[in-house]
């Protein structure tokens, strides 16, 4: 076991299902994840791989149709899954912030920006209204919003998408959270605005001791912003490690495929693609969930599902190919 006091968030063997009228959807199938204090971790994967479900599980904001079957989530030394909903509210109020993809949906359209920031500050820090207004204006100007007093008097619809996302970030950061979960914070925005927002998040992280879990489908964003990366596929983290290690030497065939596909850079006549599609999450095969699309799969892959194998304590991969290598040559 590693020293736990450096870890702000750990997820162990988390299973989540959704009950739908079409059957039970196995959204998360044994997720392992660790976020260190002050660390930024990118969570990447394609649509439906469970990235957002994982993010919502951590703050216990899952839909009623979802059920956490088993697993452990430990945040700041405390087990999240044993908390009462009142205690959870306290945690969300003070320690964990969330930013969602669509700031338009996340901001209340009938309240002024200022009121929404003030409310967040009053809830988390117990400030008086006047103090909260002062503090809110300070945060907004820190985020590069010109004329922050005026913006606080405006309603969300009067602002552009990039501006609204900045307001969301302001609200999320107003309480100096220990952990920020950002779920696709820039995928609604244009690239030049995206560059601004990512720069902003990176800068803020350097100046505070905040940890970041950045959920995205864009490998480029992870390479730019994060220190570690967790690659998800069909409800499992199939590869986890330092960004540089994973990007330069991906071990899981899915990560290899994903990186090849993401590398559109350069003159090529034909693009690499990963054949096939993700398995039906209602009827999971017994073996590796990637086996049907994997160019290297062998009979063991179809029978037994690989779990995460730790390599030299820093990196983990869920793949039999890697395990066989480790057995032969030892870890690392």
């Amino acid at each position, binding site marked *: 076991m590693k020293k736990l006091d450096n870890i702000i968030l750990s997820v162990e063997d988390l299973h989540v299902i959704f009950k739908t009228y079409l059957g039970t959807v196995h959204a998360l199938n044994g997720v392992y994840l660790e976020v260190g204090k002050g660390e930024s971790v990118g969570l990447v994967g394609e649509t439906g791989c469970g990235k957002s479900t994982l993010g919502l599980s951590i703050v216990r904001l899952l839909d009623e149709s979802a059920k956490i079957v088993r697993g452990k989530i430990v945040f700041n030394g405390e087990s999240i899954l044993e908390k009462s909903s009142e205690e959870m509210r306290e945690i969300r109020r003070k320690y964990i912030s969330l930013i969602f993809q669509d700031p338009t949906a996340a901001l209340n359209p009938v309240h002024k920006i200022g009121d929404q920031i003030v409310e967040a500050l009053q809830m988390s820090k117990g400030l008086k209204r006047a103090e909260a207004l002062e503090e809110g204006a300070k945060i907004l100007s820190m985020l590069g919003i010109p004329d922050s007093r005026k913006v606080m008097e405006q309603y969300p619809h009067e602002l552009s998408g*990039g501006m609204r996302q900045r307001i969301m970030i302001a609200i999320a950061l107003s309480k100096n959270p220990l952990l920020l979960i950002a779920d696709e914070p820039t995928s609604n925005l244009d690239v030049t605005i995206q*560059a601004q927002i990512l720069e902003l998040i990176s800068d803020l992280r350097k100046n505070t001791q905040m940890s970041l879990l950045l959920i995205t489908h864009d490998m480029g964003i992870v390479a730019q912003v994060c220190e570690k990366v967790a690659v998800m596929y069909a409800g499992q983290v199939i590869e986890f490690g330092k960004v540089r290690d994973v990007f330069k030497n991906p071990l899981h065939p899915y990560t290899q495929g994903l990186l090849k*596909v993401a590398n559109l850079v350069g003159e090529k006549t034909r693009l690499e*693609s990963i054949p096939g599609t993700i398995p039906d999450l209602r009827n999971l095969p017994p073996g590796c969930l990637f086996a049907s699309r994997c160019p290297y799969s062998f009979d063991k892959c179809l029978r037994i599902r690989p779990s995460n194998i730790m390599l030299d304590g820093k990196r983990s991969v869920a793949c039999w190919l890697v395990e066989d290598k480790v057995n032969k040559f030892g870890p690392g």
Partner: protein
Amino acid sequence: MYFPIKRGFRKPPALLHAVDDVSFEINAGETLGLVGESGSGKTTCGKCVLRILEPTGGEVLFEDKNILALDDRAFKKIRPMMQMVFQDPFLSLNPRKTLRNIIGDPFKLHTNLSDGEIEKEVKRLLVQVGLNEAFIDRYPHELSGGQKQRVAIARAVALNPKFIFLDEPTSSLDVSVQAQILNLLNDIQRQYNIAYLFVTHNIHLIKFMADKLAIMYLGKILEYGLKSEIFSNPLHPYTKALFSAAPIPDPDLKMERIILRGEIPTPIDPPPGCRFFKRCWLGETGLCDKVEPELVEFSSGHFVACHKVKK
């Protein structure tokens, strides 16, 4: 293309300058990539070319004929030659029709084929776009996003068009599926020598797809030319910023990132001068905010609209 915006009773409507004085040409078998951010007028531009929108002024020449001047009957003959693939295959396929009808309808409208012949054609198209004949009686909801986009492509190529307007055809798809669709589009282009107008905001993608590029900003083309030329030597400050803003999946590559200040201004009654002036770091007060730069030829086939770019 200007859109009137009602401002209330008795006030004259404001004009939204969606696309302003834009010119380009595409040869057979060639792809022009139209790149720009949301609201820059890329889609409007394509819709004008197809005459889905009637432009306020200008000409669209298709095989030397100005299609904007044709009456409805004459234009109907041209329509099968010019097709479109939309961004969202979930919305562009009729959920109540089977693929037999979705792909077969163009034949019913524009040819005299019998039902049996149409079925043969539909099956041929399904196979060509990488599906199989068994899909013919399925409904769109039974397909994945990538499969739906394949159907949309099959419908677009059904009548052997010479031009297809591709409006962000892969931006609603996952990267691994995106690559499959792009490969398919390239195969089809090579086989039939179709001209593509490819609209996207994804720089990496356009690098792979396009032969020529047009960079749009607020309804104007700021830079235009051969892709290889623009990528190796981007001239306009906006083009440079756009290229540097796109994240590259390589942790070792630390690019000199140009972070633009501010956001795209509103295209309603735009101010005089360069449209990029407010965000430009080279802008010269008195020149750039007063005089609109013309699109001039910088080197052979490479056009740029900027006062600050000198030979």
